[in-house]
């Protein structure tokens, strides 16, 4: 069955996330980070950060509030039960630090079909309170049996 690509190009309203120091620590501990810059303000500032920085992959934490509604959007018509997260790319810009307010928007970049599978590609763009881009994410979800 051909995929319905009518939601291609649809974008979703910005989601704001305020980055907390303890949330960075919780994430850093979960992925086994040991660098003191993620836990200690003095160590972070000594390394030249404004505040405790987030590990790069903390991008998933502040992007989720924007990606969630896009994945479940009725116009996108993605069969969640048959979906797997197939691929992911992040391109980083300005570092994210505790106290930052990160705004993320999501766009449906592509919906296509290959070898009987549906490919749903979303792009998130996250900027900080100064308008600087902090990360651009490309999320590829694959749905079997389309």
């Amino acid at each position, binding site marked *: 069955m051909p995929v319905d690509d009518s939601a291609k190009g649809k974008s979703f309203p910005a989601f704001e996330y305020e980055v907390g120091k303890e949330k960075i620590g919780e994430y850093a501990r979960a*992925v086994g980070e040991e660098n003191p810059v993620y836990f200690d303000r003095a160590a972070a500032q000594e390394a030249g950060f404004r505040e405790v920085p987030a*590990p790069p992959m903390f991008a998933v934490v502040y992007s989720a509030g924007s990606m969630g509604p896009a994945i479940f959007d009725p116009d996108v018509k993605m069969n969640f039960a048959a979906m797997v997260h197939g691929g992911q790319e992040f391109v980083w810009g300005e570092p994210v630090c505790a106290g930052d307010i990160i705004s993320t928007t999501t766009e449906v970049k592509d919906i296509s079909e290959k070898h009987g599978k549906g490919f749903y590609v979303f792009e998130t763009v996250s900027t900080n309170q100064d308008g600087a881009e902090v990360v651009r994410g490309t999320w590829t979800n694959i749905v079997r049996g389309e």
Partner: protein
Amino acid sequence: MTEGDQIPELKVTPDKYLPHRYAGASGDFNPIHIDPEFAKQVGLPQNILHGLYGMGLVARANVAAAGGDPRVLKRLTVQFRGMGMPEQEITVTGTVKSAGDGRAVVDTVAEQNGNGIIRNAEAELALDQQ
């Protein structure tokens, strides 16, 4: 870093409750990651690791290889293949694919019991960051 170099191997054995801590940290409470009974009901051998946790390990290995400053990581692209399980060792290895002009591109793989759980991972590192 020069072309053909191996980055230092990262070996991690996530404990039984790691998926729960990662769920809390990331906000992804999909029951396939935290509920062994639910996971079996949908045909999985047990609860499985979050793919993005594995990507977090790949990011960690690359940042560590370039000196540990998170600002070195400029881009990371991965494909999720296979399933990672708690309580089994994960090994992240990488080879420098190209290096020059202050940048290096590292091909990275995360494996568990010989199965690639993250493949075709490519990290772009800024070597002039330190």
